[in-house]
């Protein structure tokens, strides 16, 4: 099932299908390892706030706005 990263609960995993947004943002995320077919795990969610996600062993904090642009296939 395809959802955005922002729809996942903490502890859930998904595989990135698509990232929307300007080229700059997409490239920046790609540099951090957020690219299609990559597995992402939501580690923690701050109330109304950013998502802590785990990609390739690293935890990143992503603003909710960005999490809404990342589409994943829920695992």
């Amino acid at each position: 099932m395809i959802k955005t990263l922002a729809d996942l609960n903490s502890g859930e995993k998904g595989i990135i299908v698509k990232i929307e947004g300007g080229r700059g943002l997409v490239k920046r995320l790609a540099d951090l390892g957020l690219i299609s077919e990559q597995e992402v795990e939501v580690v923690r969610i701050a109330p109304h706030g950013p998502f802590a996600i785990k990609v390739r062993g690293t935890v990143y904090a992503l603003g909710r706005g960005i999490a809404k642009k990342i589409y994943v296939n829920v695992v």
Partner: protein
Amino acid sequence: MKSKVAISNREVTIALAGNPNAGKSVVFNQITGGNQIIGNWPGKTVERTEGWINYRGKNLRIVDLPGIYSLSTYTEEELIAREFILSGTPDVIMNVIDASLLERSLFFTLQLLELERPLILAVNQLDMAESKGLKTDVNTISKLLGIPAVGIIATKGKGLNRLLTTAIELTEKREEVKPPAYGGEIEQSIKGIIDSIKNLYPEYPSRWLAIKLIEDDREIKKLPFPEEVLEKVEFLKNELEKTHGEPVEVIISSERYALASRIARSSQYYVRTRTSFSQGLDTILLHPVIGYITMGIILFVAFGILFEVGGYLSWVLEGLFSYIKPIVLRLPFSGLFNDLLWNGILSGLISGITIALPYILPFYIFLAFLENSGYLARIAFLADTLMHKVGLHGKGAIPIIMGYGCNVPAVLGTRVLESKRERIIASFLSTLIPCSARTVIILGLVGVFMGPWWALIIYLIDLIVIYTVGYIMNKYYPGETPSLIMEVPDIRVPVLKPTLRQAWFRIKEFLTIALPYMIGGSLVLEIIKMAGWFEPINRVLSPVIVRWLGLPAITGITLIFGVLRKELTLILLSTFSNTTNFSLILNPRQMFIFSLFTTLYVPCLATIAALKKELGNTNAIILTLGEIILSLGLVGILNQILIHFLG
């Protein structure tokens, strides 16, 4: 560089490159020891650290590049690192990587490899990787990348000798560096371009140039290329995007990650998996409720201690300086000169030092500790939601928190923010934060004579003002708040030396910015005093001070002095009225208004200097005037209201 000395005696320059938190600065400190200088990259606000060491008869110069994730050009740091490597200055690039984050680290390594410069890999934090249950085979990494790799544990100094020896060997061998090969279609596109650009820019490796052209690199695109080359690039890019259905720069990044992932998988495997110490700690530190409580307690306790320590140290220092005073005043010059020298120049200098050493240095050490332990990133994570309301993302909380120690580092600390808009908002908000000097006034006046609850009310009013100002600025300042993208590194115990060094560098920066202004300011004030202008100034200010703010006329001149150093307002008030019992000269309303006004009325001179340095003259003036107008309006109105209640 191009000296005629035999190569073996020439200085060898090693550039340290790597991701943030990979342990680069620890490696740097371990190698260079004390022999180093910290400064800024020419014309940039990015820190540059350089060190020297004579290692087995070789003179080594080590340059620590900024910690970055990629060699694209999205940040100033990335551009600086890339330009320095391509300039040909470093004889060898030493890439420090975190073994526990192998895949992401190698993504960066591959980009370094593309630059075709001598490269050595320092596979760091093998102990951390092991504690996560990861076994790393350094030799396989070396073989697959085609470059030397040395396993190290920088914090314990392990493997560093071998690292240096291997690096020096590398400069002597002068072998060709083979760039990484990517997938079929991309390789074809690269080859298609290489031939037509081969001799255009000899300073760049042509394969790298071809990749950058395909990647649409901002800097490389600025260079002139023949029309047919650009057309070809455009055609190949379109082809790639059509087959992959993604922007071409992402396709290349994916290629790099695919290769990095292959290398990581063949050279590292899990012996066992277990929850790391840091992950366990995060269930508390990042908890939606307990996390905030923990943050509040940590900051409150830390600031309490820092404030107490600062008070004590500054008392000791002032005691020391009071011994110098009679000596200076007895100097065989005229009395006028001695007064200017002591009250003007020296007291400005002493002011600077008695703020910098007791208050700001411990504060900087605490901050560096927070930063290097990884907790600062967690504060940014927790604060993100709230900070968005005032036009900042989570990292904006960092300068705001720093402001409670001193506004100068807070303003300098706005560098962590990406856009000018954010930096202006964050700077303005942090100049409204009651720093330790203003805390002295609030606690010493309102706290002592009216009670702690009244002091707390001042802090609350201040927070409401900051929130409102931020909210309004966010609404009317054109532009958008960027979203947070930030690594949350594992919690770890910071290594002491780099932490202290970082604090020391920052305190030096504070002194170079603030001291000239403090000395100049105190000289001007001494002249005003000698000219006997106190009375006239009080008279000129009295409509505002007496009528509007309802304060005694005598406070006028103290507020002028307070621009130099905020707590001078209170010190001078007691000097002028010959008492430390302020209840004799101020009624409760006046105490409250006086404290609130000194908190808000203007950034101190040193802060204005910092604003000027970070945001330019115009912005510094606008923000300063804005603050004066805001405080006069706000505190004046509050005074008119309070008159009815407190009399």
